[in-house]
């Protein structure tokens, strides 16, 4: 699923852009060194193919819904990881600009989430391990399914982590995580089925194409060490950032709850999944009580002051918006007038 600008903080967006940018530069260098330029048009046209393929979708029996191809793993199998990463980056860029999928800041996250995991983790560590020795139909299916599942799970994990560090959602980390990973399970299965189907179709009709990409091993054989170093850096970065943000503002709801109820955490049962729900119930049950009991003069004054600023803000905002509307219309009228004169 595509990450969106609206869910991101500048720090997270910037870090993910840095990671994506480094990977892009690394891939470009790798391709430049190891490649004849035959692959350049192939990459371009394959990117366009992914686009066209995403437009076609098929009916999933007995559900009434439809599935289509994501494409990261298929690209990795046909082009090798570096070329696949660049191709996917270009596809996502076009989607961000023309179909407004996510936005410009989130593009860094999207390229990383949807590209890095399938190309540099799932493909070399799973797909290649399984199919390297001997390519059979069974191994092909197994390798593609496993790689697609892992790739998509990692990608959605990326979305969850980035969103959570950015802190724009009230949804707790664990429930968001469960939701996203669960949604991406069937998506991963579909992706695996489609990729396996297309690759085996290619294998049956034109086996030399797969052999060729298989023989192009200097591109595909990315040293494992580099991948691990990259992952380590990413882990440290996210870990460091996560703890920094976590210490700066602990979950707002929990804090307010603790203050509101005046009860120590120990009182609540310690099962992690349960507490959230219980806290919610407790909050909705206890807050009115709290309001009646403790709302004193300073509380209402504070509220009044707060309302004052927000009213002022909204009035000002409305004025600015009206002004903008007016300005835009006038500019447009003037421009059109001039255009007619020029003609």
């Amino acid at each position, binding site marked *: 699923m595509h990450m969106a600008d609206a869910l991101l903080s500048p720090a997270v967006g910037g870090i993910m852009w840095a990671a994506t940018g480094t990977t892009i530069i690394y891939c470009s260098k790798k391709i430049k060194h190891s490649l004849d330029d035959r692959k350049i048009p192939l990459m371009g046209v394959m990117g366009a193919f992914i686009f066209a393929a995403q437009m076609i979708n098929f009916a999933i029996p007995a559900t009434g819904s439809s599935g289509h191809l994501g494409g990261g793993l298929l690209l990795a199998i046909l082009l090798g990881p570096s070329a696949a990463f660049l191709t996917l980056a270009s596809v996502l860029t076009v989607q961000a600009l023309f179909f*407004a999928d996510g936005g410009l800041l989130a593009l860094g996250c999207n390229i990383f989430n949807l590209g890095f995991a399938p190309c540099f983790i799932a493909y070399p560590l799973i797909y290649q391990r399984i199919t390297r020795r001997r390519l059979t139909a069974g191994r092909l299916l197994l390798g593609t399914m496993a790689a697609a599942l892992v790739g998509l799970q990692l990608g959605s994990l990326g979305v969850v982590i980035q969103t959570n560090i950015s802190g724009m*959602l009230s949804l707790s980390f664990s429930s968001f995580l469960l939701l996203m990973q669960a949604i991406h399970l069937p998506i991963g299965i579909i992706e695996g089925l489609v990729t396996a189907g*297309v690759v085996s179709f290619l294998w049956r009709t034109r086996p030399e194409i797969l052999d060729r990409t298989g023989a192009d091993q200097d591109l595909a054989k990315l040293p494992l060490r580099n991948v691990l170093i990259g992952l380590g850096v990413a882990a440290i970065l996210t870990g460091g950032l996560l703890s920094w943000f976590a210490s700066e503002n602990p979950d707002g709801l929990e804090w307010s709850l603790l203050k509101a109820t005046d009860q120590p955490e120990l009182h609540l049962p310690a099962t992690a999944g349960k507490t959230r729900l219980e806290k919610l119930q407790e909050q909705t049950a206890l807050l009115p009580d709290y309001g009646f009991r403790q709302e004193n003069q300073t509380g209402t004054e504070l509220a009044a002051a707060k309302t004052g600023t927000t009213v002022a803000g909204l009035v000002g905002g409305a004025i*600015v918006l009206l002004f903008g509307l007016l300005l835009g219309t006038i500019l*447009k009228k003037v421009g059109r007038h001039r255009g007619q004169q020029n003609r």
Partner: protein
Amino acid sequence: MASKIDKVFYDIGRLEILAEQNSPIHRLDPRAKLLVTIFFVLAVVSYGKYAIADLLPFFLYPAIIIGLANLPVGYLLKKLLIVSPFVLFIGIFNPFIDREIMVQFGPLAISGGWVSFASLLLRFSLTVGAALLLIAITSFPAVCGALDKMGAPRILTVQLLMLYRYLFVLVEEGIRMIRAHALRSFSRRRPRYRIYLQLLGNLLLRTIDRAQRIHLAMLSRAFSGEIKTVRQFNFGRSELLFLLLATGALITLRTTHLTDLLGRLLLEISQ
């Protein structure tokens, strides 16, 4: 299904036609517009979770650009509405979880969740709108050129240009296949899994063959690893002015609470 895809691609074509106009904004160097768009997005997302009033003045930027570049507002709005249900889908949880009362307008109490949800929507329309505007005033090849000039890896920009060039060709090929399938399957809306795989596989084979032909054609026209264009890049005085004005305005907006000041002033005058 085919007609729906037709429409989507007509849409892309429309954005490109908008980019071909001739206005003061369109005439600016793509690099200036790309930079301003990036600054704009950064400024918008740098606000906190509950910002609403502070975000409103940022709508001045699209208003001014739409006015100066003579863009159809309705079309852009429609495009905004169609896209990315993801933000809505995830953001709608906010009001149900974050129920602490944040704002009180007389009897009407608004919880933090609704405030942050509204903020999310504002943020979404501003940032996504900025990306759409960039294409509508710059055109995709020009953005690629700007990226290239600003130091993006050559292979990436070449790849972007190639993808863009063959996008329409391959999508048309895909549409033909879907149409053929629909004609032979009593207008079943979507192909079944097996047939879908064959469609996709055939499309892939055609794609690979096409890439080979393109490569030979490029080689016979002296392709050396980069696409050469005749587009002139010129970062002159008007670009500098645009960049300074825009960044100045963005910094002012980011550092002051314009709406709040304005609102207070008005309320004081009226009292």
